[in-house]
């Protein structure tokens, strides 16, 4: 399937619409990130119990939120791909999974650095931490299956199943601190059992962080999707030439 878009005399696989949308979204995301840093380091109050180290919260929570969003997009795209077999959905899933892996890594590293000060250790085999590490390994498996399967179509189908199964871990990660005895702090925003006890300035900083990370992710994911489209167009051209 040729996915190229006509652009002047040259055939470019990435449409200029996607490219410009990605550029504008990424720039907006960067502006929000600058605002977030100003708020984190110069504006928001310091938390009374944990002190300065609590500021890691404003990068850790948005990173994990974006990771969950990315894996959710990947699972949804993969499910529809298995149904419709539209390659664009598989490309969207690959792009989202790569972003999800990166943001999970950021979440794990920032969480470990916070844990060293708060718990006295970088790592604890706590249910939430263990399930998050499991999520990272499941999606590592997603890429390994794609790379190891000789038949690309089969690889896409198998990895789609992994993306769907992996996403089942996300709700488990969320409820793990409620169901099991856990060192990890309880949810402060998404807890339905009690009213939210987060300072309004801290909540605003967190919301700006969530928005900044989401916008930046959506912008960069547009480029990653474009890369996947270009790669497949190149593969098709090379296959045609060899045939």
């Amino acid at each position, binding site marked *: 399937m040729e996915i190229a878009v006509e652009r002047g005399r*040259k*055939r*470019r*696989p*990435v449409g200029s619409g996607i490219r410009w949308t990605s550029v504008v979204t*990424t720039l907006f995301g960067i502006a929000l990130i600058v605002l977030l*840093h100003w708020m*984190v380091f110069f504006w928001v109050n310091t938390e009374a119990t944990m*002190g*300065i*180290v609590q*500021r*890691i919260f404003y*990068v*850790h929570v948005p*990173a994990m939120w974006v990771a969950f969003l990315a894996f959710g997009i990947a699972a949804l795209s993969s499910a529809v791909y298995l149904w419709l077999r539209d390659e664009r959905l598989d490309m969207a899933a690959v792009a989202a999974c*790569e*972003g999800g892996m*990166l943001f999970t*890594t*950021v979440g794990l*590293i*920032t969480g470990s*650095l*916070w844990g*060293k*000060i708060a718990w006295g250790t970088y790592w604890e085999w706590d249910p939430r931490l263990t399930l998050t590490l499991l999520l990272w390994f499941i999606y590592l498996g997603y890429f390994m299956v794609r790379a190891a399967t000789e038949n690309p179509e089969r690889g896409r189908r198998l990895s789609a199943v992994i993306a769907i199964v992996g996403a089942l871990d996300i709700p488990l990660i969320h409820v793990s601190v409620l169901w099991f005895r856990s060192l990890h702090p309880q949810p402060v925003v998404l807890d339905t059992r009690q009213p939210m006890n987060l300072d309004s300035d801290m909540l605003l900083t967190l919301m700006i962080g969530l928005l900044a990370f989401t916008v*930046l992710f959506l912008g*960069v994911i547009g*480029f*990653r999707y*474009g*890369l996947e489209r*270009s*790669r497949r*167009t*190149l593969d098709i*051209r*090379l296959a045609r*030439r060899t045939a």
Partner: protein
Amino acid sequence: MVAQAPAVNRARRLRLALATVSLLAPVLTSVLAPGAAAAQATELGRQTLGRPYWHVFIAYALAWLLIGWWVVSIARRLTRVERRLDSE
């Protein structure tokens, strides 16, 4: 004017005494309670950035290094593939 002189002198002496006490207070403290003064000096000496600050800076630096590396890697891969597509 002459009748107010003793009151002025008293006030001046009082200010002088307060200034002397405030200047000598750290010295007197260190002489009378050497342990407390030493503890205070050590506490002041410890006022550096400290580990929590470094952990915050390292967390933010690593996060942006990783995200930056991802963006650059996408840009490089995209440029390489498009160059090959153009040459095809």
